[in-house]
């Protein structure tokens, strides 16, 4: 008598289907909850103190003289095309690397994580090589318009050094991801994303201490202005530093950095030396203090954390066919997904950045109450940086991390209009209040309420 094949237990099949179904429902519910949580967090991060404004139209010709405007547009045109091409080439380089990069595992005698580090570093090395010509073109263009003073060799050496920093960072990132993926092959992203957010927080805190060429602002009047403006923002006195960049560039810039006790404002020395007057510099200080007053750096870390989860998940999903992130051969593909996502969400990042910068502008105008100084600052920035006051829409959407100069001036004018409207309303209220008092005084037995 032959052996009979065991028939599947219908009950077991049903139980399996039920378990799968339950898992799917649970996953769906978790996803919904996560999306809801994400949305709530994004909503609160998005909130700013900028009221609804009807921004008037400001023409580029109202900002810059025709000759200066032509120059600014010419400068910007090549730079934005160069940037776009550079990013396309970057994506192509990573795509090629994702296809062939795994072959480089033979160049490693290290273990899995060490090999993963090597592949990650080489990926960024290939990308650096691919983007090098575009960087040199941009440098040549900036030098020819006297915006940059950096020599070609110095630029390459500096870029090389920056690549070294990138290598160290990517090694740390790969170490974290692969170490976590070893124990949580399918769900490493759940642990990895918060870890990276924590690193971003640490980096934000440490930034003032690792930025080179900083020295305290010497001008006592400006320091006093900074303290006054900080007090108006409800901040303690914030140290103001100057970064020496005049040997590299003529463009002015400033930034707020740090968290909690490490908060700083950094002015490039290209702002000083009489290029900008005190009123304009007050607006700059007020703008940077506005970032600190509204915790923009912390919010940026928050946004980073929000995007880190879906990005890490996508990397985990994309690399599962290559064995997951504990396999070094998955690293080239992970790099492609990572870079691709960064480029894909760049418009969103630019939007968020513009949103925060607009709030900083608003706070600057509110605390300085100097629309003339603010307007003149923005006009001067456009002229000294050869910036197109109203760039093309595609460039604005993709790359502009600040409102355009035209928009910033429009905000100043909107603020002025609000002030005028407010003053008119107050004077009308004052007049009507006096009239009511007068009428009440003429009526016997009247009670003034």
């Amino acid at each position, binding site marked *: 008598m032959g052996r009979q094949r065991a028939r599947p237990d219908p009950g077991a099949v049903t139980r399996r289907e039920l378990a799968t179904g339950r898992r799917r429902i649970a996953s769906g519910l978790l996803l919904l909850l996560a999306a809801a949580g994400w949305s709530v967090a994004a909503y609160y991060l998005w909130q700013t103190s900028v009221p609804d404004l009807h921004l008037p139209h400001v023409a580029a010709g109202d900002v810059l003289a025709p000759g200066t405007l032509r120059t600014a547009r010419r400068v910007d045109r090549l730079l934005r095309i160069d940037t776009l091409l550079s990013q396309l080439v970057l994506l192509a380089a990573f795509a090629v690397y994702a296809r062939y990069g795994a072959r*480089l595992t033979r160049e490693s005698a290290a273990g899995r994580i*060490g090999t993963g580090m090597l592949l990650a*570093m*080489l990926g960024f090395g290939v990308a650096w090589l691919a983007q090098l010509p575009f960087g040199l073109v941009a440098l040549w263009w900036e030098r020819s318009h006297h915006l940059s003073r950096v020599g070609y060799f110095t630029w390459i050496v500096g870029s090389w050094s920056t690549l070294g920093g990138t290598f*160290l960072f990517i090694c740390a990132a790969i170490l974290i991801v692969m170490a976590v993926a070893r124990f949580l092959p399918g769900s490493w992203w759940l642990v990895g994303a918060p870890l990276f957010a924590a690193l971003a927080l640490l980096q934000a805190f440490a930034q003032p201490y690792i930025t080179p060429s900083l020295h305290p602002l010497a001008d006592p009047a400006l320091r006093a202005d900074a303290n006054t403006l900080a007090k108006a923002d409800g901040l303690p006195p914030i140290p103001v530093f100057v970064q020496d960049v005049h040997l590299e560039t003529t463009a002015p810039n400033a930034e707020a950095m740090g968290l909690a006790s490490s908060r700083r404002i950094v002015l490039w020395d290209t702002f000083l030396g009489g290029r900008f007057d005190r009123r304009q510099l007050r607006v700059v200080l007020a703008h940077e203090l506005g970032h600190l007053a509204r915790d923009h750096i912390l919010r940026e870390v928050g946004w980073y954390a929000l995007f880190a989860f879906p990005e890490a998940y996508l990397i985990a999903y994309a690399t599962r066919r290559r064995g997951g992130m504990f396999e070094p051969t998955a690293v080239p593909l992970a790099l492609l997904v990572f870079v691709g996502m960064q480029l894909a969400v760049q418009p969103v990042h630019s939007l968020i950045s513009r949103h925060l910068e607009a709030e900083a502008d608003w706070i600057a105008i509110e605390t300085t109450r100097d629309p003339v100084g603010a307007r003149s600052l923005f006009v001067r920035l456009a002229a000294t940086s050869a910036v197109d006051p109203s760039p093309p829409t595609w460039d604005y959407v993709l790359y502009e991390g600040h409102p355009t100069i035209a928009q910033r001036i429009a905000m100043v004018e909107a603020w002025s209009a609000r002030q005028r409207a407010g003053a008119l309303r107050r004077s009308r209220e004052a007049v009507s209040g006096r009239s009511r008092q007068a009428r009440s005084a003429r009526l016997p037995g009247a009670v003034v309420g």
Partner: protein
Amino acid sequence: MSGHPVRLRLNDDLRRMRLAVFFRLILAIPHYLWYWAWTALALVATILNWVSTLILGRPPRPLFRFLAAYTRYTVHFHAYLFLIGDEYPGFTGRNGRSPVDVEIAEPTRQGRLGVFFRLALAVPAFLVASALAGPSTNAVTRASPYLTSVGVAGGVLVTVAFLGWFSSLVRGRMPEGMRNLGAYVLLYVAQLDAYLFLLTDRYPDAAPAPGAISLSTAGNPVSLVNEAEARRSRLTVLFRVLLALPHLVWSALWGVAAIAAAFASWAAALLTGRVPRPLHEFVERFVRYQVHVQAFLYLLANPFPGFSGRVESYPVDLPPIPREVQRRPATAVRIVLAYPALLLSGALNWLLMTCAVLLWFVGLTLGRAPESLQRAGCFALRYWAQTLAYTLLLTDRYPYSGPWAGNEPVPIPAQ
């Protein structure tokens, strides 16, 4: 070094007359004058030789003999000056009159293209010769967080002479390793001279004998295994320094622990005469890891090393070092005793870096590493490993600086 038409002959018994050593620089004054005068003539002769060889395809015999004698004289003179030999040299450069001598094979036909571009072709060899024989006034620190020796370590030859002077005065002998190291430098410079003077079209060979790398000779248990392939990945060569960054960071962190362990080893060795096994193995692994990283950084090997210093995990490797009894008096003053070796290691580091620079260019263009440079670099690395092992109490055998043991280089089998 074997198979090259310029070969070394050593007939030195290592004994040095203290009085002559003390006044060596002054005694050499007549030779300075004669050397510079002969050098001026040799330059003229070289130009004539260059023209003649371009026309005839081989150097004319009178010019060949003149320049060969000059080359030999240079070796005799510098061997005396730098304490590689002890007999006062003659002024004629005659063959067989000095304990340190070179034999130059008879001239052969030379390609005219190579003759025409001889000076340009010799540039890489110049760089190696500068690292070996060129004095430098830079204060050199062997860049590592756990070794803080600073010394004037110029060319290798100057350092050998500097240390050998003290040793010869005290002991009346030149240490064999340093004598052989000095002879290796003189031989390389002689080969370069012969190449430049068109006595041969064979490129100078920087490689010490193959046995030098494993070097369990002279009783030193610290050896190096060199199984590196010649192939180099151009991509990793281009980014080599940057790729080594994570290893340098890990090295620094591990180095802190290794120094602490070495200090504990020192205390234990003073008390018990031996380093405890766990400490020995921990420090040994660290030294091995350093060898792997240095080999990668200086392009002596191709693959990216691991982070654990595991034995047999890398083509340039450090075999296990046996745990031996350590003499207490030497252990007590180990860091002081190690200073000369650290100085010499710093000088050899210039050779290592020069080889690395040349390996970088060749690796990028040809995708391979010339064996000569790779082995020269491994030789320098081996000495550095021995010095580190000695300093960190893995062994109490003093590092051996010679590329070979005894009086003659080990012949290289034909390839």
